[in-house]
C-alpha cells in the first residue's frame, strides 16, 4: 500500500461512491487506502507505505490460511463482512492450534459501492483485528465495473505460529476419542438468513462470529498432545465438519442429538425454512476431538471461557469402514448425518 501525501480534498465518505479511479493505482487509490484502510487498521507495517509487510519470523512451525468472503447481506445481526473476514481466517489458523500473527486483506469493490459502507466495513475489520491482537499488515484494493461484483468481496490471508510439540490434524481421530462442541449451532446462518428480505421472517438471533484462538490456547494448555484435532463448523455446519473428519481419519462418529445445543429461535427458524440446524453455518464455534482421558479437563477450561460456556461432549469416534456419521435422535431412533447434497443457502460466508 503506497500513498503519496499530496492531495487536494478529503474523500467524501458520507455521500461518495467507489468509482473506477479508486482501483486504478493512482492518487485516488492512494487516497482511498489512506483515508479508509490505513485509518481503520492503524499499525506500523501499513504506516511504512510499502507494497508488502516485512517482519521477523519466530522459530517453530508456521501455519498459513486464506479465505474469500462473499456473504450477503454485508451487514447482519452480530457482524458484517469485515469482522467475518477477520474472524474466519483467524479461526482457520487457530484450528491448527496456532497463535495468529498477521493478516493480509484484499478487496474487490464494485463501482458505485458507498464509501460510507466501505468505511464501516474497514472499521469493523480494524476493531475485530485489534480485539484479537492481530494486525492487518498488508492489502490490496481493486475496483470492477458495476454489475461485475456485488458490493464488496474480501479475501483475507493469515499466518500463525503453532506451539512446539502440537500436531492437530483432521486425520488424527481414533475410535474411542470424544467429540466436544463448544456451543450452540446454527446461530450465524439463521442471523444471516433473517436479513434476506425474500425469506420474510425476523429473529433476535445474533451471528456467533468470533475469533476462537483464545479459547483454543486454553484448550491446548489443558490437553496438550491428547487433543487430536480442532475444526470450526462453518459453511455446511456441524454435519459437514464431522463428515470431513470421518473421511480424513477413515473413521465414523456416533453422536447424540439431545446433547447438541440449538437455541429455540434457531430451531424455530429452521423449522420454518425446512432446514436442519446440523447443516447451518457457524462462525464462532469449534469441534474438538480428544482422547477420552482429557475430556473433563477440556470441558472445564472451555466452560470457563466466554466462547465455550455451553461446551459439551456430543459423541465419540467409531471404527467404521464406510465413514458413517450416525446419530441417536432425541426421539430414540438412529439416523445418518450425511453430507449435504447441494447448497442449503448460498453466500453465507
Amino acid at each position: 500500500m503506497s500513498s503519496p501525501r499530496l492531495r487536494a480534498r478529503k474523500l467524501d465518505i458520507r455521500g461518495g461512491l467507489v468509482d473506477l479511479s479508486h482501483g486504478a493505482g493512482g492518487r485516488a487509490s492512494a487516497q482511498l487506502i489512506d483515508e479508509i484502510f490505513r485509518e481503520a487498521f492503524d499499525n506500523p507495517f501499513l504506516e511504512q507505505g510499502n507494497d508488502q509487510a516485512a517482519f521477523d519470523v519466530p522459530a517453530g512451525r508456521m501455519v498459513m490460511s486464506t479465505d474469500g468472503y462473499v456473504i450477503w447481506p454485508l451487514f447482519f445481526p452480530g457482524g458484517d463482512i469485515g469482522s467475518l473476514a477477520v474472524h474466519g481466517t483467524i479461526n482457520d489458523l487457530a484450528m491448527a492450534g496456532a497463535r495468529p500473527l498477521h493478516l493480509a486483506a484484499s478487496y474487490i469493490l464494485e463501482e458505485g459501492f458507498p464509501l460510507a459502507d466501505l468505511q464501516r466495513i474497514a472499521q469493523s475489520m480494524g476493531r475485530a483485528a485489534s480485539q484479537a491482537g492481530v494486525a492487518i499488515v498488508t492489502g490490496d484494493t481493486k475496483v470492477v465495473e458495476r454489475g461485475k461484483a456485488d458490493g464488496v468481496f474480501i479475501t483475507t490471508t493469515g499466518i500463525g505460529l503453532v506451539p512446539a510439540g502440537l500436531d492437530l490434524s483432521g486425520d488424527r481421530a481414533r475410535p474411542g476419542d470424544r467429540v466436544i462442541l463448544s456451543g450452540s449451532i446454527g446461530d450465524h446462518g439463521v442471523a444471516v438468513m433473517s436479513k434476506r428480505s425474500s425469506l420474510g421472517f425476523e429473529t433476535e438471533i445474533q451471528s456467533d462470529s468470533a475469533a476462537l484462538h483464545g479459547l483454543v490456547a486454553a484448550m491446548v494448555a489443558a490437553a496438550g498432545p491428547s487433543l487430536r484435532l480442532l475444526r470450526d463448523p462453518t459453511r455446511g455446519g456441524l454435519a459437514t465438519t464431522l463428515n470431513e473428519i470421518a473421511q480424513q481419519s477413515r473413521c465414523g462418529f456416533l453422536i447424540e442429538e439431545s446433547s447438541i445445543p440449538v437455541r429455540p429461535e434457531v430451531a424455530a427458524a429452521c423449522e420454518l425454512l425446512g432446514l436442519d440446524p446440523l447443516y447451518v453455518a457457524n462462525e464462532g464455534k469449534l469441534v474438538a476431538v480428544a482422547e477420552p482421558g482429557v475430556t473433563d479437563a477440556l470441558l472445564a477450561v472451555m466452560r470457563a471461557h466466554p466462547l465455550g460456556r455451553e461446551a459439551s461432549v456430543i459423541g465419540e469416534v467409531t471404527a467404521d469402514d464406510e465413514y458413517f456419521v450416525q446419530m441417536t435422535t432425541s426421539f430414540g431412533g438412529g439416523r445418518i448425518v450425511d453430507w449435504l447434497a447441494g447448497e442449503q443457502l448460498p453466500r453465507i460466508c
Partner: protein
Amino acid sequence: MKYIDEYRDGGLARSIAASIAREAVLDRHYRFMEFCGGHTHAISRYGIEDLLPSNVEMVHGPGCPVCVLPVGRIDDAIRLAMRPEVTLCTYADLMRVPASGGASLLKAKAAGADIRMIYSSMDAVLIAEAEPARQVVFFAIGFETTTPSTALSIGLARRKQLTNFSVFCNHVLTPPAIRAILDIKNLPEVERVLVDGFVGPAHVSTVIGTAPYVALAAEFEKPVVVAGFEPLDVVQAILMLVRQVNEGRCEVENQYIRAVTTGGNLIAQREIAEIFELRKTFEWRGLGELPVSALRLRDAYAQYDAEQRFDVVPVPAADNPACECGDVLRGLKKPSECKLFGTVCSPETPMGSCMVSPEGACAAHWTYGRFRDRAKASAMQDAA
C-alpha cells in the same frame, strides 16, 4: 419449542412403541403404507423404524410431489425457461430433478435461463409486478396442500391486473393415487402392492378433510389413519392401524385432530374450485396415466395458464430404463432394491427424482437410513 417438542417426545414415543410391540400379534406381519413423502421423511429422519417390532413394516407411498412429476413435465419447464422472455419461478426441490438427456433446471440456469428459486407462490407474483418486461411463469406442483396457495397467487395477479404472470400447473389429487395403489385386481401378481392399511395424508387432509378416504377404505377394505407429520403422530397412527387390523375394522380415523376435520378447509376448497378444473387424464411418474387425477386452469383463467400462453406441446419422455423409481413409488420395491441405488444414483448425481426431494423415498433412505442396510446384509450373511 412449543407445539413442536411435544410431538417429538422420545419418552412418549417409547411408550407408544411398547404398546405397538405388545398389541401386534406375533405370528402375523403388518404392512402399512405411509402415503406422504412428509411421513417418509419423518420416519427416516427420526429413525422410527428402530422403534417398531420386526413384524410391523412401513412401505413408502407415492405422496412426494416432486417424485411423481413425469420427466416430460420437467422437460416442458426447461423449454419454457429457455425462452428469452421467460422468468421461471420454482421451489428449490425441483432444481436438481433429472430431465431428459441429463438436463435439469439447475443446469439450464447455469446455461443462462432465468430461473429463480422462491419460497412462496406469492413471490412469483411480486417478481412479475416488479419486472413488467419479463414473462413470469410459476412452476406449480404439489398435491391439494399447495394448490390453494397457487389459486391465491392467481387471484392476486388478477387483482393487480398483471398481464405477465402465468402458472405452469402440475397440481395433482391424492384420492386417485390411493385408488391406483389399491385397485390391483386387474394387475399381474408381481405388480400387486399388498398393504394392510394407510397412514393417510396430513397436510393434504387439512384441505380436503377425511371424508374423501371413506369410500376408498370401504371399497378396498383397508383402514386409513390420517396422521400429522411429527414423529409422534406417525407412531401413534401406526398403533391405531395395528388396532384396526387386529379388530378387523377398515375405518377412516383421524389422528391429526389438531389440524384436520371431516370436511376440510372449505375456503381453500372454494378457492381451488373457482380457478381449477379436473383434467381428463394426467401422467404420473410410477403410476402411469391416471384419469381425473390432476387439475388445470379453468377457461375463465386461461390468460394465467402458461400451457396456453406459450403453446406447451407435450413431448413424450421416458425415465432412465434402469431407474426403478416407478416400483419404489408404488411400494413394490424398497429403495435399496434398485440396482442404481448408491451406485450411480445418489443425491449428488440423482438418476431419478426419488433421490432428489427430501421427501423422496430414495433420498430419505440414502440420507438417513442406509446404515441399516449394512446390519441387514450382515444378518442375512449370518443366517446363510
